[in-house]
């Protein structure tokens, strides 16, 4: 298992549980915030506040068969997740966005479940990365 870098023992546990791409690219996200873990903690907090509502809206759009709604919600989630260095979650959101754009929602619900799982992984790692930073 190769992680981007900067991972501690705690990260290895998460990575070992889910083989493949790490949930969070620590190097990229720290670079994006200029090494400012406090800012990163703030971003994580903002994300935690908004994400549940976005996921609900996304699910509702899928249930309602609203491709534009799916595209929009997935796009917003993808933006946030890519800024937070959450590669797999961001890619999952991108797939949902494309499904919305192509008005092809047959596999959207499965992808949404996968997205929620990836977000949960990313949030766990994010919390550990920000550990100690004041919010």
């Amino acid at each position, binding site marked *: 298992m190769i992680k981007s870098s900067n991972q501690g023992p705690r990260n290895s546990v998460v990575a070992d549980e889910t083989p493949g791409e790490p949930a969070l690219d620590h190097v990229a996200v720290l*670079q*994006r*915030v*200029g090494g*400012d873990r406090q*800012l990163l903690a*703030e*971003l994580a907090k*903002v*994300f935690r506040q*908004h994400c549940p509502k976005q996921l609900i809206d996304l699910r509702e759009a899928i249930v309602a068969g609203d491709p534009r709604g799916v595209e*929009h919600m997935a*796009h*917003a989630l*993808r*933006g*946030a997740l*890519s*800024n*937070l260095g959450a590669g797999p979650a961001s890619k999952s959101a991108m797939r949902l966005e494309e499904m919305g754009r192509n008005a092809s929602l047959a596999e959207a619900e499965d992808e949404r479940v996968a997205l929620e799982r990836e977000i949960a992984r990313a949030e766990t790692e994010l919390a550990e990365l920000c550990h100690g930073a004041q919010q």
Partner: protein
Amino acid sequence: MKILIAEDEVVSRRLLCSFLEKEGYEVVVTGSGQEAWDALQRPAPPRLALLDWMMPEIDGLEICRRLRSPGERAYTFILLLTSRDNKADLIRGFEAGADDYLTKPFDPEELKARLRAGLRILKLEDQLVTAREEMHFKATHDTLTTVWNRAGILDIFKRELARSRREGSSITVIMGDLDHFKEVNDAHGHLTGDQVLQEAARRLVASVRSYDIVGRFGGEEFLVLLLGCDRLRTGDRAEHIRAAFACGEFTSSVGNIPLTISLGALATADWPSRDVEEFLREVDLALYRAKAGGRNRTEVAIPPQAAAILVAPGILSSRRGSR
């Protein structure tokens, strides 16, 4: 430097805001296209704009189009934030009026470099605007006295005449000619003559309201437009200007020089169908009468229909200032 962020996604918005504040920008943060458009309509709007492509209601492309529609506004450098990086989309972005684009998630160093390029363009635009304004000033103002030149004041006269007729108001037009200016030039030389012209312009400007117009018509002739001046007060206002002008001798580098002016005046409302050229002819004739009547005087041009009903010759007497 003010910079606008239009981004509906909260994490990106917070990240951009933090980064730009650290870079020393004054950040105007908006969360939708409508908010961004409103912020761009306020006085002194940001001239750098980071617009997310995809936003509900008004998207980044629409803001680009609106900003690039014809109108009097300072140039806004637009950087589109997009997660779309295929060629067709980028071309759409540029065609809508974007100057540059940045793919999300943004790279801080790349954003910095692109904003520096934006600042260079804005600086160039400022230089062009300043140069254009300087050229416009030079084209419409008299170099020696800095009041409007002939072309400049005639242009204003035409515009204001049309406006006053629409609004049913009057303009008092005053043509003034410095008394004995040729003697000043002959006795003291052209440099002193120039000083006298500068002082004359100063005195005229000082004697009118800030929104009245003073121009050098040519040589030692000045034209003054009193906008919205009641036609019944034309004579009094012109006489006030003449008296203020003759308030004292001018202390030049070669000694004291007496300074007086002869004025011809008229109220445009008294001549309903005349044009600018005709007004200038009439006011010039009145000025000629003021000169012929002994100088340092004001003569008001009386329209023919009014002159016909003034039966007593004495009514058309000129106004003489005290000397």
